[in-house]
């Protein structure tokens, strides 16, 4: 009876459980025999209190301490933070309380990370989320390696890369007072026009004119990434 109660309370509360129940979530499904010791959730104090008390009678350890704990903690459930519940068998000393607070902090952070990493929302359990995060960070790092290799391969030297970036930079930072930085490159000065509507006269390369038609169209769109890409292409075509 008590077992059922506890199971019910814990399972019903699970959806709205605060992050500090991460550890509980992991515990309960695995070991149902000793499920009784799982600490009650805050939203159902009375039932859980009674079940906890009964369960504790079966066990040898500190039952009195535990009930006091529960009473204290259910009082404190209105507090916005530091819901500390010592587990059964753990003394309510400062170490375990601190440990608990620390864990809750960690779990809160883990939630943030879960939202950031794509596809992590459905995963439950700290270890799995950490797995995903590790994979993501690793893939990003590999991508950086790969992209830098490609950049190195594309350009025989870093010069063209540089002019490229200058123009792109000018494109994406239109609102900033950027041309000051572009001074080493007189070419970019000539090219740099806020509206970018007349590329042809500036790039006096006749045979390249047909290539300018499409970039010119794309120049008219001022969304930052598109702009920077189109300016990249313009600049590079000019260079060649």
């Amino acid at each position: 009876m008590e077992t059922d109660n506890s199971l019910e309370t814990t399972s019903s509360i699970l959806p709205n459980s605060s992050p500090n129940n991460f550890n509980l979530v992991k515990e309960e499904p695995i070991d149902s025999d000793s499920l009784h010791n799982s600490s009650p959730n805050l939203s159902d104090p009375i039932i859980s209190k009674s079940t906890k008390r009964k369960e504790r009678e079966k066990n040898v350890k500190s039952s009195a301490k535990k009930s006091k704990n529960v009473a204290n903690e259910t009082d404190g459930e209105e507090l916005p933070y530091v819901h500390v519940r010592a587990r059964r068998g753990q003394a309510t000393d400062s170490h375990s309380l601190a440990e608990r607070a620390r864990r809750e902090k960690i779990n809160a952070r883990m939630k943030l990370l879960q939202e950031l990493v794509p596809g992590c929302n459905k995963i439950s359990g700290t270890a799995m989320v950490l797995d995903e995060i590790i994979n993501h960070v690793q893939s990003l790092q590999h991508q950086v390696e790969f992209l830098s290799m490609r950049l190195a391969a594309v350009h025989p030297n870093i010069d063209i890369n540089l002019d490229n970036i200058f123009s792109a930079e000018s494109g994406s930072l239109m609102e900033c007072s950027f041309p000051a930085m572009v001074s080493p490159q007189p070419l970019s000065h000539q090219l740099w026009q806020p509206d970018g509507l007349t590329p042809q006269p500036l790039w006096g390369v006749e045979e390249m004119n047909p290539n300018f038609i499409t970039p010119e169209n794309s120049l008219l769109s001022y969304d930052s990434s598109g702009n920077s890409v189109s300016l990249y292409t313009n600049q590079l075509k000019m260079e060649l």
Partner: protein
Amino acid sequence: MHNSSQLKNEFIKRWVQGLHLYCSSKKEMNLLERKKKIKLSADIALASARNSATCWSKAIISKAKKDEGNTNLVNNLSRLESKLMYAHKKVTCHKRIRSKKILMRSCGVGKKMKPRHGSNLPTCVAKRLVKKRTQVLKRLVPGGESMDEYSIIKEALDYMLSLRVQVDVMKNLVNATTNLN
């Protein structure tokens, strides 16, 4: 959270400055060297764009500083003079955390040996899994070894966001250059 477009702009600015330094040196570089330089300048640009607000950025900068022949760094340093102090602080922080860990470990050994209830076995398993993964994460994030579990998560968060920015910018660049060729 920081503004990602702002970060992007900062990153591009600094990366350009860094690359400019490299192209002004007239050496011939082979593919791998070029790649390394590009990556290095990108990393430093990213780290400095974060203004050393985070541990990983300081770690990157201090690691790069150790290598000689990084003239890139010298110029970056002129922009980031205040960061020198942070880098030093980070080293001492590292030592402090390490010694703290040793102390905790020596005190905590007896505690861990205490027999727990059977219900704690899954907890132990879960804890071990999490611990393994945090160790891996610590190795991934630069400067992560000297952080405790809580801060490594925060750092990983920030590092991931910045890496995304870096990848975005580099992708745009690569696309632009490949469209051309």
